[in-house]
C-alpha cells in the first residue's frame, strides 16, 4: 500500500495507535492461535498505514471482525486513551460523536481521550452501516454493553492488582482507585494498555452482543446528555479531512460513465476511434449496455466520455409516461401487487351515516436524492484483492455485493468507509462502488470514478410517486367516525442496497434478479382513535422495469413524507369542516386513541402540546380570516411518528398573492425520541431534517418526457436555497414518557422523524393563510398561483 494514502485524521491517529509497536501487533504475533481471531486488526492497521507506520504491508484475506470478542470493539492504548471500533457510518448527523459519548460513559473515560473508527469492513464489526434511523436506537446498545463489559473487566483486573474486592473500587477518567484511599490507584493503560482483553462476548447476533456487565442506569451517565462538539467538523471546515472523494493512489486512472441517452436504449456500436487519439486515453470498457471511458486524468475522462461516439437503439415502446401524465397513468394502471386491506369496524356504514364527509385526493411526484456530490468511489485491485474507498452508508453490504458481482471470495474484498456527501438512504454511492470495482478489475489498476451531475440527478434512485384518495366522515358531535384511505405508489422493483443483480451496472449488463422487488405503498402512522377505517394500498409499475432512471429506492423515511402529507392534510380538512381548531382536533383524536406502544398516546399528546406552546398557538379554526394584503400569513400543524419517535411540526408561512411564492417564515418542532444523547447534535439534525422536508414541500419534483428525465441539473431541478431559509427555527425536546426520570429510558431514532411531517405542515399552513387547499406537492409558486387564481384569492 502506498505511503501516498491519506486517511481522515481521526482514523489515522486511531490506527497509528492501534499498530504502535507496543500495541496489538506485538501481542498478536506472540499469541499463536489467537492471531486468527484478531488478525483483522493487524490487517487493517498495516494495510491502511503501510510504510507510513513503519510496518510491513500485510495484505488480506480480510477476516470478518468477530463481534463476540471485546477486543473487536475497544482498544486501550498505552497512553491511557481508547479507540472504539463500530460498524456504523455517519452521514453528518453526528452519530459518531454520539457513539463515542455512549461508549466513553460506560467505560468511564473522558470523551476527549477517545477516538472512533467506523464502517471499515476489515476493522470494525458488521453492524450493517447506517439506515432507518437505527444508529442510536438499535446499534448503540451493543456498543454500550461492550464498553460496560470492558469496564467490568478492568475493575476485576484492578482488584487483583490492588488486592482488594471490586466493590471497594471506583472507576473514573480511565483510572481505578480504592474508594477509601484514592491514592491507591491504577490506570486502564497500566492494566491493559497495548494488550488484549481476551474476553469473549455473547449474543445470538451482533445487535444482542453483550458481556456480563449491565449498562449503567441513566442517572449514572455523565457524558450522555451533554453536547460535545462534533469531532469531524474542524477537519471539514479547514480542508484537512480526507474524504472518499479525495482518495488517490499511485497508478490510479479516472473513469466516467457513458449512459444510454434514453431509458431502455440498447447499445449497437461504439466507435472507440472517436476518442482513442485523445490525450491520456486509456480504454473504453463496455459490457452489455454499460459503457465507461478511462483516461489518465480526470478532465480527460470527462471530455472523452462526452466525445465518445456510441450508437444506441431506442426502445420500440415508451419506457414510461411523461411526468405530466404520471398520476393519470397511476390511477388506471393495473397494480403489480396490493396488500391485504387493513379494516376495523364498518367503514361503509359509518360513512353512510356520517353527518359530513370530506373526500380528497393528493399527489406527490418522484423526488430525488440528488446528492450535492455526485456518486464516487476509488477501487484498488492490487495484489489480487479489491479495496473500495467509498462513502456508502452500508459499507458491509457494498463489500458483499461487490464480491458476488465480481465472483471474488469475500475475504479478498473490503470497503473502507470515508466521509462523503449526504446518504439519506439508498443513494447512487452503491452503484458507483460497484462500477469502480468492475473497472478496476478489468484494468488491473486503481480506478477512481465519479458520476457527473446529469447522472446523479438523472440516474440515482428516486423516492416513489404517490396518489392518494381519502374520505373521512364526521359524526354529529364533530368526531371522526370513519376513515377510508387508498394509496397507490409507483414502487414496483424498488431497489435494495448493494444488490449484485439490481445495482445500475448489473441492470445495464443484463443481469436480473429472479423477480423484481415487490415495493411498498404505505398506510399512515396511525395513533388517532378512529373507530371505523378501511385502508388499502396498491403498487404499480412503469412499462420499463429495468435499466430505467425511474428506479425507486429508499429516500429518508422512504414513504413517510408522502403518506403524512395525504393523511395529515385530510385531518386538517376535517378539522376545518368541523370548525375545530386543528391542534384541538388532533388532541381530541388522540384522547380517543386506544392503541398504544411505547406510550405513544401520552407522548403524542405531550408533543403536540409542546409544539403549540412553543409556537404560542392561539386556538381558532382554520383558515385564518381572509387578508387583502399582498402577503397572506398562516400557520399549520402536522403530527406523526416514525417508529417510536414522536414529532409535531408547526409551520408559519407567508404566501405572496401576486407571485405565489411560499416562504416558511418560522418552523417549530416538538420531538420526543426518548433519551437524548447529544442535545445540540440532535437539534441540528432535527433542523436540517425539517429543511430537507421543506425542500421537498416547496421545490423537488423529477420531470421526464416519455423516454428520459428532463431536469438533471440545479436550474431545472431546483432545491431549497438560502432565501428559503426560515427566519426562526424552534426545537423543543420533549420527554413525554409517563415516568420521565426512569433510569432505563431508551433512546429512539432521530434521523428521519422531523423530515416526515413537513409537506403536510406546509400544506396546512398555506390553507390557513389563503383558504386554498393544495393537493399536489411540491408547492411551487406557479402551482400555488394557479390554485389561488382558480379560487379567486
Amino acid at each position: 500500500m502506498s505511503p501516498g494514502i491519506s486517511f481522515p485524521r481521526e482514523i489515522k491517529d486511531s490506527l497509528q495507535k492501534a499498530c504502535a509497536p507496543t500495541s496489538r501487533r506485538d501481542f498478536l504475533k506472540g499469541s499463536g492461535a489467537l492471531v486468527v481471531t484478531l488478525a483483522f486488526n493487524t490487517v487493517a492497521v498495516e494495510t491502511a498505514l503501510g510504510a507510513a507506520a513503519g510496518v510491513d504491508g500485510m495484505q488480506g484475506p480480510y477476516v470478518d471482525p468477530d463481534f463476540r470478542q471485546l477486543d473487536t470493539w475497544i482498544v486501550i492504548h498505552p497512553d491511557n486513551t481508547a479507540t472504539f471500533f463500530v460498524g456504523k457510518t455517519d452521514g453528518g448527523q453526528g452519530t459518531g460523536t454520539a457513539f463515542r459519548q455512549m461508549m466513553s460513559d460506560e467505560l468511564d473515560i473522558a470523551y476527549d481521550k477517545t477516538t472512533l473508527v467506523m464502517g471499515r469492513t476489515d476493522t470494525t464489526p458488521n453492524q450493517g452501516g447506517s439506515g432507518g434511523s437505527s444508529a442510536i436506537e438499535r446499534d448503540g446498545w451493543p456498543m454500550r454493553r461492550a464498553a460496560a463489559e470492558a469496564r467490568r473487566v478492568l475493575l476485576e483486573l484492578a482488584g487483583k492488582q490492588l488486592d482488594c474486592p471490586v466493590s471497594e473500587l471506583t472507576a473514573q477518567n480511565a483510572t481505578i482507585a480504592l474508594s477509601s484511599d484514592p491514592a491507591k490507584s491504577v490506570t486502564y493503560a497500566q492494566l491493559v494498555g497495548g494488550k488484549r482483553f481476551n474476553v469473549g462476548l455473547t449474543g445470538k447476533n451482533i445487535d444482542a452482543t453483550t458481556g456480563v456487565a449491565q449498562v449503567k442506569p441513566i442517572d449514572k451517565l455523565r457524558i450522555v446528555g451533554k453536547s460535545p462538539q462534533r469531532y469531524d467538523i474542524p477537519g471539514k471546515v479547514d480542508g484537512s479531512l480526507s474524504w472518499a472523494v479525495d482518495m488517490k493512489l499511485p497508478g490510479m486512472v479516472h473513469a466516467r460513465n457513458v449512459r444510454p441517452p434514453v431509458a431502455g436504449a440498447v447499445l449497437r456500436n461504439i466507435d472507440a476511434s472517436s476518442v482513442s487519439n485523445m490525450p491520456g486515453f486509456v480504454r473504453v470498457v463496455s459490457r452489455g449496455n454499460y459503457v465507461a471511458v478511462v483516461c489518465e486524468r480526470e478532465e480527460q475522462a470527462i471530455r472523452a466520455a462526452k466525445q465518445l461516439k456510441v450508437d444506441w437503439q431506442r426502445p420500440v415502446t415508451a419506457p414510461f409516461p411523461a411526468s405530466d401524465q404520471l398520476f393519470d397513468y397511476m390511477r388506471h394502471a393495473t397494480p403489480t401487487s396490493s396488500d391485504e386491506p387493513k379494516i376495523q369496524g364498518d367503514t361503509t356504514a359509518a360513512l353512510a351515516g356520517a353527518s359530513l364527509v370530506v373526500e380528497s385526493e393528493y399527489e406527490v411526484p418522484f423526488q430525488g436524492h440528488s446528492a450535492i456530490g455526485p456518486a464516487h468511489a476509488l477501487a484498488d485491485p492490487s495484489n489480487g484483492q479489491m479495496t473500495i474507498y467509498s462513502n456508502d452508508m452500508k459499507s458491509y453490504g457494498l463489500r458483499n455485493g461487490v464480491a458476488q458481482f465480481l465472483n471474488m471470495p469475500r475475504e479478498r474484498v473490503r470497503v473502507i468507509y470515508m466521509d462523503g456527501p449526504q446518504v439519506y438512504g439508498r443513494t447512487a454511492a452503491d452503484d458507483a462502488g460497484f462500477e469502480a470495482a468492475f473497472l478496476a478489475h478489468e484494468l488491473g489498476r486503481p480506478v477512481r470514478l465519479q458520476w457527473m451531475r446529469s447522472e446523479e440527478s438523472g440516474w440515482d434512485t428516486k423516492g416513489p410517486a404517490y396518489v392518494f384518495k381519502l374520505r373521512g366522515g364526521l359524526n354529529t358531535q364533530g368526531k371522526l367516525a370513519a376513515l377510508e384511505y387508498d394509496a397507490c405508489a409507483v414502487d414496483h422493483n424498488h431497489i435494495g442496497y448493494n444488490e449484485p443483480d439490481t445495482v445500475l451496472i448489473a441492470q445495464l449488463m443484463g443481469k436480473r434478479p429472479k423477480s423484481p422487488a415487490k415495493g411498498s405503498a404505505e398506510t399512515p402512522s396511525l395513533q388517532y382513535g378512529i373507530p371505523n377505517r378501511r385502508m388499502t394500498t396498491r403498487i404499480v409499475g412503469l412499462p420499463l422495469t429495468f435499466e430505467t432512471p425511474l428506479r425507486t429506492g429508499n429516500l429518508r423515511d422512504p414513504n413517510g413524507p408522502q403518506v403524512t402529507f395525504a393523511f395529515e392534510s385530510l385531518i386538517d380538512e376535517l378539522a376545518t369542516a368541523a370548525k375545530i381548531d386543528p391542534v384541538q382536533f388532533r388532541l381530541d383524536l388522540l384522547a380517543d386513541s386506544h392503541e398504544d406502544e411505547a406510550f405513544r398516546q401520552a407522548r403524542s399528546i405531550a408533543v403536540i402540546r409542546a409544539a403549540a406552546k412553543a409556537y404560542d398557538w392561539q386556538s381558532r379554526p382554520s383558515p385564518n380570516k381572509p387578508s387583502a394584503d399582498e402577503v397572506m400569513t398562516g400557520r399549520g400543524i402536522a403530527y406523526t411518528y416514525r417508529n417510536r419517535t414522536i414529532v409535531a411540526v408547526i409551520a408559519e408561512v407567508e404566501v405572496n398573492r401576486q407571485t405565489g411564492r411560499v416562504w416558511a417564515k418560522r418552523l417549530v418542532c416538538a420531538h420526543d425520541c426518548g433519551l437524548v444523547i447529544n442535545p445540540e447534535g440532535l437539534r441540528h439534525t432535527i433542523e436540517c431534517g425539517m429543511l430537507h422536508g421543506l425542500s421537498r414541500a416547496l421545490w423537488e419534483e423529477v420531470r421526464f418526457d416519455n423516454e428520459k428525465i428532463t431536469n438533471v441539473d440545479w436550474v431545472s431541478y431546483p432545491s431549497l436555497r438560502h432565501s428559503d431559509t426560515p427566519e426562526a427555527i424552534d426545537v423543543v425536546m420533549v420527554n413525554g414518557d409517563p415516568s420521565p426520570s426512569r433510569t432505563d429510558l431508551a433512546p429512539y431514532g432521530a434521523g428521519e422523524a422531523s423530515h416526515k411531517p413537513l409537506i403536510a405542515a406546509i400544506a396546512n399552513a398555506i390553507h390557513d393563510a389563503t383558504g386554498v387547499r393544495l393537493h399536489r406537492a411540491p408547492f411551487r409558486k406557479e402551482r400555488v398561483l394557479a390554485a389561488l387564481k382558480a379560487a379567486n384569492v
Partner: protein
Amino acid sequence: MAIELHVNGSAHQVNAEPSTPLLYVLRNDLGLRGPRFGCGLGQCGACTVMVNGTAIRSCTMPVSQARGEITTLEGLSRNGKLDPLQQAWIDEQVPQCGYCQNGQIMTARAFLNRNPKPTDAQIRSAMEGILCRCMSYFRIQAAIKRAAGGTPSTARETAE
C-alpha cells in the same frame, strides 16, 4: 503545457491543457481538498475558490485564465490560526455532511471582505447561489452573522 499558478501564497508549475477547469488542477495536481466537484456547471458552488479576492467557480474557469492569487479553503487559515469564519463555522456546528461547506465558507469570506457588516437580507442574497443538500442554511447564516460580529439568531431550544 506548463502553467504557473499562485495558490495560497506559493507558486506552482503544472502541466495541463489550458482549457482544463481549474478545479481538477487544484485537486489532482496540487492535492487540495477544499474545492469539490458538485455539478461542473457553475450552479452549486461546491468548487468555489477566490481569485484575487473574488469568489469564482473553479469547475468552469479554465486553468489558463486563473491569473493572480488563488486562495482555497486550505489557504484561509494563517499560521495555524483559523479564519474567523472557519471558527464561527465550528462554533455554530454548521455542517451536516459538509460536502458543500467549502463553497459556503469561500463565498462568505469574499462577501464579508466586501461587506463586513451585512444585513440578514444581504447575507441571503450573497449566499443564494451556493446549494446545500443537507439544508444547513440556517446555521450557515448564523455563522456568517457571528463572524461579522453580530448576534447569530441560532435556533431557540426549550427543554420540556
